[in-house]
C-alpha cells in the first residue's frame, strides 16, 4: 500500500529557498518505534490532508536529551540540546509541533535557557487550534458513541497544564469520554517517564503500567486514548498483560482523528 506521504525536509525546503510555517519534530520514538511510527504517519496524513505547510529535520534531528537529563546526565542533555538548537536556529525555526510530550516539554521549557526560543505545541494543541480555525474537520466516524478513557501524559498534563486539548478533540469525535479515578492533575503516570522507559523497574509488588492499565480498565472502556508514544507502549503492554488486546485498543488521539476521517 503506497500512502504517498508528503514529508519535506528542512534541507530540501532550504534548497528551494522556502520556509515552512511549522517544524514537525518527530522524536526518536516517532522515528524508530514501530508502534509510534503509526502515530507519526497518522499526524502527517492529517497535515497533508489539510495542506499544512510543514517540514521535518529528518536525519538532522537528534534526541532532545530528555531521558539524559531525567537520568541525571546534565552534560549529555546539554550537548544534545546545544546541537539541536544550533540546527533549529540555523533554519530560523519559529514554530515547532511534536507528537511526543517529552520532546514538547524539553524544547518548550528547557531549551530557552540554552538559547533556543520557539513556540512549541503538542500535536493535540496544534490540532485543536486547526479545529478552532475551521481548517480541521473532526467527525465521529467509527468512534461515535464509543466509551473511551483518556490517559494524561505527565509531561503534557501536570508538567505543562494541558488537560483540555486532547479531551476537546475526543469530544469532537462524539465519543463517550469516561475519566479514570485519577485523571488530569492527579493522573497516574504510565511508568515510562524519567528515563524508566530504558531500564527495568526497581523491585516492588507491581509494574506501574499494570497499575495504570487496571485503573483504565475499571472504566470499562472500548478503547484507551493516549497522547504520548511512551504512554502508548506502556498501556498497550498493560492491556496485553490483562489479555484484553483483542477487545481494547490503545490509540493516540491523532490516530483516532485520522481513522475517523478515513485517512
Amino acid at each position, binding site marked *: *500500500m503506497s500512502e504517498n506521504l508528503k*514529508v519535506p*525536509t528542512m534541507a530540501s525546503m532550504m534548497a528551494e529557498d522556502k520556509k515552512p510555517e511549522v517544524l514537525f519534530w518527530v522524536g*526518536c520514538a*516517532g*522515528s*524508530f*518505534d514501530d508502534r509510534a*511510527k503509526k502515530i*507519526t504517519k497518522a499526524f502527517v496524513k492529517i497535515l497533508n490532508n489539510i495542506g499544512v505547510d510543514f517540514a*521535518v529535520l*529528518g*536525519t538532522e534531528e*537528534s*534526541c532532545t*536529551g530528555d*531521558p*539524559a537529563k*531525567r*537520568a*541525571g*546526565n*546534565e*552534560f*549529555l542533555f*546539554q*550537548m*544534545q540540546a*546545544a546541537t539541536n538548537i*544550533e540546527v533549529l536556529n540555523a533554519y530560523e525555526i519559529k514554530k515547532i509541533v511534536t507528537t511526543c510530550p517529552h520532546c514538547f*516539554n524539553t524544547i518548550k*521549557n*528547557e531549551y530557552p*535557557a*540554552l538559547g533556543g526560543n520557539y513556540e512549541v505545541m503538542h500535536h493535540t494543541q496544534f490540532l485543536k487550534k486547526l479545529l478552532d480555525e475551521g481548517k480541521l474537520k473532526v467527525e465521529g466516524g467509527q468512534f461515535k458513541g464509543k466509551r473511551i478513557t483518556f490517559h494524561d501524559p*505527565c509531561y503534557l498534563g*501536570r*508538567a*505543562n*497544564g494541558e488537560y483540555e486539548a486532547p479531551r476537546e478533540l475526543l469530544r469532537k469525535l462524539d465519543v463517550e469520554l469516561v475519566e479514570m479515578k*485519577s485523571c488530569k492533575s*492527579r493522573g497516574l*503516570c504510565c*511508568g*515510562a*517517564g*524519567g*528515563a524508566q522507559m*530504558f*531500564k*527495568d523497574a*526497581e*523491585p*516492588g*509488588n*507491581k509494574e*506501574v503500567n*499494570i*497499575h*495504570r492499565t487496571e485503573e483504565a480498565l475499571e472504566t470499562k472502556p472500548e478503547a484507551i486514548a493516549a497522547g504520548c508514544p511512551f504512554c502508548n507502549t506502556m498501556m498497550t503492554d498493560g492491556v496485553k498483560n490483562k489479555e484484553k488486546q483483542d477487545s481494547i485498543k490503545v490509540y493516540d488521539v491523532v490516530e483516532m482523528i485520522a481513522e475517523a476521517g478515513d485517512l
Partner: protein
Amino acid sequence: MEYIPQILFIVALAFSVWFFARNVGRLRRNILLGKDVDKTDNKPARLNKMIRVALGQSKMVTRPIAGFLHILIYVGFVIINIEVLEIILDGIFGTHRLFAFIGPVYDFLIGSFEILALLVLISVIFFWTRRNIMKIKRFWSKEMKGWPKNDANNILYFEVILMVLFLTMNATDYQLQMNGAEGYAEAGAFPVSQYLLPLFDGLSNSTLIAIERTAWWAHILGIFFFLNYLYYSKHLHILLAFPNVYYSKLTSNGQFAHNETVAKEVKMMMDPDADPYAMPEEDASDEVPEKFGASDATDLNWFQLLSAYTCTECGRCTSECPANQTGKKLSPRKIMMDTRDRLEEIGENINKNGEFKDDGKKLLDDYITREELWACTTCNACVEACPVGIDPLSIIMEMRQYLVMEESAAPMELNNAMTNIENNAAPWPYNQQDRLNWINEN
C-alpha cells in the same frame, strides 16, 4: 509578694522567647548551609501564590475531608491567638481580662474563640481517629514509625489539652463572675463553656479561683512549651509553610533546574575557536571545581532545605507516587524527612564542634538509597500533591546528577541508553541516517 506571679510569668515568657529565638537562629543557620539560589524574582506572583496556597489553603481542599478539618484548626489557631495576646498582657501587668473594656466586641470575640475552640477540639478528634483507628494508609508507611508517629499524635494531644484548659478557664471564670467574686467583673460571652458549669456546681469561690488560676497558668505555659516544641517537630509547618510557598517554583513543573556550570563547559566544547590547551583564566585558577549534583544535605540549595523543615509529613506526595503505589521503596515524603534528619545531624555536629567535623556520613546511602532514587518516574505527582509547595523531585534529580556525573553509577541499561544518545542521537541503537525511513515503510 503580690508581684510574684507577674515576675514568674515574665521569667517564663522571657525563657520561652529566648529558647525559641535560639532555635530559630539554628534553623536559619542550618537552612543557609545550603547552596545559594536566586529567588528574588517575580515578587507579586510569589505573594499571590502565598496568599492563595498558604493563607487560602487552596491545595488542602483537593482532599475535602482532611482539607475542611484542617481549615477549622487553622482558622481556630490563628484567631485564638488574639486571646493569647490578652493572656500575655494580663500575665505581665497582673491584670485580669485587660481587653474587657471594649464591651460587646469583647463578648463577641470571646464567644467566637469558644466556638472555634470547640471546632478545633472536634477536628482534632477526627484527625486522631483517622490516624489511629481508621489507620489511613499514608499515616502508616514505613517511614512513619517511632518519632514521626509519636510526634503526630503528640501534637493532637497537645491541642486537646490546650483547648480543654482554655474552656475550663473560661467556665470557672464565668461561674466566678456570676458569683460576683472579687476581681472577676462580668466580661465575655461563653457559648460553649457554659455547658461545663455543672462540673463546678457547688464549689466555693476559693476552689473555683484555684481551678481558674491553674487552668490559666497551665494553658499559657502549655503554649510556651508548644512554641518550643515546634523546632523538634513536623509542626514547624505552621510557620514555614508561608515562606516555603512564597519561594516555591513558579515555572511549569516540567522545567527542571538549569545548570550554568555545565552550560559553560558545553559552550566551550562546541566553540570551534576555543583552544583546548588554553591556560585557565587567572581568576579561575584557584576555583575548586564545583561538584555536580548532591550527595549530602548541604549540596542542596537553601530552598530545598527550607522545604525539609516545612514538611509536615502528611504523606499526600507519597500516596500519589506511582512508584510508591506499586510497592517500590521510593517515598517522596521520606526524601524530605531524610533531608531534614541529615541536616539536623549536621547542625548538631556544628553545635558541638563549632564547625562541621567530618562524620563519615552523607545523605546518599546513609539515608536515601540509590534504589529509591532510581525508582522515580519524574511524573511530578508529588510536587502537584504538596499543599505547601515542596518539590521532592528536585532533590531526587540533584542526587541522580551526583550519581551519574560524579560516580558514573547509573543502572547499566541507562548507561546503554545514554551511550546510544551520544553515538546515534537516539536512546536506541538505530542510525541517525535512518530517521526518515518511516516514510517509505508500510
